[in-house]
């Protein structure tokens, strides 16, 4: 296990390097002058422009710029934004909000997804199974932002149950609706996954054997069916935690939450390459680490998988 972990971490290095290079190239090889973007419609004096170029390393060849970025990133020096703030400080302000939102969405989708999936899978063909299936299909096929508007309209505007938008320091109630919107598609996928896993496992030979040995139905379901059915669900959830951080942008836009997604959106609109690259790199790192943890969890949950 230790050696496997080490090998996986070593394998992660080229992936992270490649991904940051890809993002860096997308952001900085684009047409358009970042210095001009910084000044908006105002004309820029050549001397000022040259000084800014030197300060942000924009005067050097692309690959040197990238290597300098890497060198600075390793020492947690991500540079400054156009308005002179430290990138690290901007991220530090927005990051906790998004983490809170993502964790709430994660708990929401895990609890409701698994519970409804189990109910649906064990009681296949009942009317509530059909209702759960139809709702989960609808949640998957309606875009998240439409789900968001509809919830905002009914829960917030019409029934006054939850706050319509979140302020600068959002609390639990402020983030409840955004988290539900953020987790809704994944919840629907988890329902479908859990249901199909349970229906497949319940038909397996080992279930029949357990029943033939006189095991009660409750024990068969708890000990055998659920344990085997939930392994792929855990994998899905783990990979999704990383994706939720990146996907929070829609939810944060609808509910006006000052999280990492909204910050990234504004940074892209202003053409702030440094900030964009830093945020995306951070998200990619979280995503890759989440996937690594999932692979490790696999060994614990499924004794058939052994790592050399």
């Amino acid at each position, binding site marked *: 296990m230790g050696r496997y972990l080490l090998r996986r971490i070593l394998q992660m290095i*080229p*992936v*992270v390097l*490649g*991904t940051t290079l*890809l*993002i860096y190239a*997308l*952001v900085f090889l*684009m*047409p358009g002058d970042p210095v001009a973007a910084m000044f908006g419609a105002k004309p820029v004096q050549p001397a000022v422009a040259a000084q800014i170029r030197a300060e942000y390393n924009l005067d050097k060849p692309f690959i040197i710029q990238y290597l300098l970025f890497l060198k600075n990133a390793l020492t947690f020096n991500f540079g400054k934004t156009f308005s002179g703030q430290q990138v690290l400080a901007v991220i530090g302000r927005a990051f906790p909000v998004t983490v809170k939102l993502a964790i709430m969405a994660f708990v929401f989708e895990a609890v409701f997804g698994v519970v409804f999936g189990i109910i649906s899978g064990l009681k296949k063909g009942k009317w509530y199974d059909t209702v759960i299936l139809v709702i989960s*299909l*609808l949640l*998957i*096929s*309606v*875009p*998240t*932002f*439409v789900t968001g*508007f509809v919830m*905002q*309209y009914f829960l917030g*505007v019409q029934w006054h149950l939850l706050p319509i938008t979140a302020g600068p320091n959002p609390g639990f109630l402020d983030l409840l609706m955004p988290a539900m919107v953020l987790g809704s598609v994944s919840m629907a996928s988890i329902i479908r996954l859990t*249901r*199909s896993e349970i*229906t*497949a496992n319940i038909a397996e030979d080992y279930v029949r054997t357990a029943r033939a040995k006189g095991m009660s139905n409750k024990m068969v379901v708890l000990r055998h069916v659920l344990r085997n059915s939930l392994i792929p669900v855990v994998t899905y959830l783990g990979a999704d935690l990383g*994706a939720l951080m*990146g*996907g929070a*942008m*829609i939810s944060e*836009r609808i509910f006006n939450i000052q999280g990492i997604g909204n910050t*990234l*959106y504004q940074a*892209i609109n202003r*053409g702030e390459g440094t900030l*964009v690259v830093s945020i*995306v790199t951070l*998200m*990619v790192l979280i*995503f*890759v680490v989440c996937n690594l943890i999932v692979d490790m969890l696999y060994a614990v949950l499924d004794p058939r998988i052994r790592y050399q």
Partner: protein
Amino acid sequence: MSNDQNINQNSDEFFADPLPGQERYVAPLDETPLQDVDTVDETNPPTSMWADAWKTLRKNPLFIVSAVLVVLVFVVALFPQLFTRIDPRDCDLTYSLEPASPGHPFGFNNQGCDVYARVIYGARTSVAIGIYTTLLVSVLGGLIGAVAGFFGGWVDAVLSRLTDIFFAVPLLLGAIVLLQMFRTSSSIWKVIFTLTLFGWVSMARIVRGAVMEAKNLEFNTASLALGSTPGRNLFRHILPNSLAPAIVIATMSLGSYIVSEATLSFLGIGLPSSVVSWGGDISTAQQYLRTNPSVLFYPSAALAITVLAFIMLGDAVQDALDPKARTA
């Protein structure tokens, strides 16, 4: 010897009387000569996996419903003028946000355009983006996956790391960064290429796995032993046998590309408003949600029904092609 008799006795006992509630009568062994069981009916042509799958599909109500919907959406996308005579770009501000009236069943949007006509004409954009992205993803991902799985070794190592790199960039993030570049373009191809660039990864992974599995099956070894070349084997045996999972994932992700386009348009970096699209109409209608929810409802419903149809079609195809994953 005594052991054999024992078994026979036991099986006679077992097969003699059907148990209460048993549906079929099982004939005793001496009434079923082995030749009859072993005789293969050579007059009937062997059924292929595809013929079998088609037989299962035809009987699946899920397939029939989704196929009818998909065909309908295609007809609307190809021949919108069959469904409405109104030009979706012919807008008159005097009608702004007016409710439904005869000839205008869905009412008007804020610009005074006919919502029904816009829903009908928007189908083409969404379907085109879904179809072209799926085709490009299948070709690009299928090729990379097949090459990686077939050649193995360092080719696989390089291609797999490349796949990992693109896998680590979430689709929406990558698309937003890239689309920024083509902000001024109004072509739907910028969205198609962007979605392809960040969407081919799952296809490549699935095809790679399927090709690696098919490569190690006995019929492949047998074919090689009979003198077939590896290249011929790839096209004659390995690819046809890896097709099923690729078709399933392609059908299912088609809907998700349509949703992605709508989401990008919502963020204001997908298609410009000059292109009639469901995503664009939904994102402009959101401002009028509180006063005129119907303007938001119709394009959203059209989008949801289309995506739903493709997801159900994918489910049905998966059931037919992979009997092990059969849920019904």
